């Protein structure tokens, strides 16, 4: 009967994979979005009972189901650079190379690659959600004209600097995802300032979701699901035959 559990946990992994693909494809037009990846192949291979787990099953049958999947499956964020899309909006900035913008939220500091900024009523530079963008010297307040953002992140208004957009570098494994393309720092992780990161103004970094890859993954997931389904079907037939041969009492 262990093949039933293998195929059920396999299908569970396929469902997770489908959720991840669905979210990636839904965010194909979300600027600053970074594709999520599931370590699926690893998960699949580990779904097969290994020799040691088979031995364990004989000794301790109930431990079998839980030892399948979870131990190696994980997800990570693919931080490869997205294409630079020109928007002509002077408040849009795209980061070139590594780095993240820092924004202040009610829950603390968060980081993002999405540079579709706007001005709040009081002239503060904020994200579309209204989170203030952090400058190297605190919030950036613009007044008296349309700002112009230079390559190094300096915000100029009528020829005078009103602040410099802060850029930080963080090890991707130290980040967890939140809504609105925000990333949260894991406890105890550190942030390094990266004032050398270049920016392009009047442009945004488009989503790095690769449609070909996602669609291929989806076909693969669909096929894997079918195979696992076949396993369940034959397993079901076998149990039935066994019940007919030896069963009935």
């Amino acid at each position, binding site marked *: 009967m262990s093949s039933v559990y293998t195929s059920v946990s396999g*299908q569970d992994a396929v*469902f*997770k994979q*489908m*959720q*991840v*693909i*669905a*979210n990636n*494809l*839904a*965010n*194909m*037009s*979300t*600027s600053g979005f970074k594709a*999520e990846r*599931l370590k699926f192949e690893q998960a699949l291979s580990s779904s097969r009972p290994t020799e040691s787990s088979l031995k364990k099953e004989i000794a301790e049958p109930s*431990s079998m189901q*839980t030892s399948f999947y*979870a*131990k190696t*499956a*994980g*997800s*990570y964020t693919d931080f490869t650079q997205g294409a630079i899309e020109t*928007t*002509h*909006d*002077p408040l849009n900035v795209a980061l070139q190379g590594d780095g993240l913008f820092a924004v202040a939220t009610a829950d603390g500091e968060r980081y993002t690659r*999405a540079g*579709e900024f*706007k*001005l*709040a*009523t*009081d*002239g503060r530079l904020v994200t*579309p*959600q209204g989170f203030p963008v952090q400058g190297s010297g605190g919030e950036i307040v613009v*007044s*008296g*004209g*349309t700002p112009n953002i230079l390559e190094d992140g300096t915000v100029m208004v009528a020829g005078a600097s009103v602040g410099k957009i802060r850029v930080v570098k963080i090890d991707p494994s130290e980040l*967890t*995802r*939140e*809504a*609105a*393309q925000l990333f949260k720092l*894991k406890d105890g992780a550190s942030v390094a300032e990266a004032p050398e990161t270049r920016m392009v103004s009047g442009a945004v970094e488009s989503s790095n979701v690769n*449609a070909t890859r*996602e*669609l291929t993954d*989806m076909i693969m*997931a*669909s096929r894997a699901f079918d195979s696992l*389904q076949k396993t369940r*079907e034959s397993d*079901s037939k076998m149990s039935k035959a066994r019940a007919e041969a030896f069963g009935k009492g």
Partner: protein
Amino acid sequence: MLNALYSAATGMEAQQLRISVISNNLANMSTSGFKQSRAVFQDLIYQTQQQAGATTTAGEQLPSGIQVGTGVKVVSTPVIFSQGIMEQTARDLDIAIEGDGFLGVSANGQTAYTRAGSLSVSATGSLVTQQGYELNPPVSGLAGVSGLTITSDGAVNGITPGQTTATTLGNLSLSTFANPSGLSAKGSNLFMETAASGTPTSNTPGQSGAGTIRQGFLESSNVNIADELIKMILAQRSFEMNSKVVKTADEMMGSMNQLR
């Protein structure tokens, strides 16, 4: 599996809204003073299905967690106030604003703002827009005036009947906003002040960051046709891909239902 269906549905919905924004931009390709909008997307909350660092029943620590997203939404459709191309019309009462700022107009008892500067003189001698809305602050006393000129700083000069030299008959002023993208579009090229845009500051053209006036020109729409068409293709394909997710997820659920 239901999650995948819902995420794909949010994707389709957002792309549909994007198409609406694009089609409005394209429809207003030739509307002078029109400013294009752009759909801004954001991802939704993430479900942590497995916490990184959690301990498995086998006593091992998970190196990474599993975070699964739940889709997308359009967070805003800001108007992009980049300068449109100056189109020469050689008409005395056509004005274009070069730089920031809006002309104030009185529309149905409220003050609205516009960058469409195709003006006319009304029967009562006031400067009005093509929709018949009077400028605010008004410029009046232009009945029978000849040789109208509008200078770059907004002074309206003309020769009143019975005179031989031109005199200044009024001044145009430009209103600037802290956040023009926060203005609410009301149709007829008009924008209204909102809490997000901030209150307007009235300026003499060319001063305090306000643009200058160019007589005999109109500012054409800032819609870039090639950009919009590319965005439309992308939106359509993204929509299709999301519907493909729905189809695949549905097939999987269907085949699960077959199991006996």
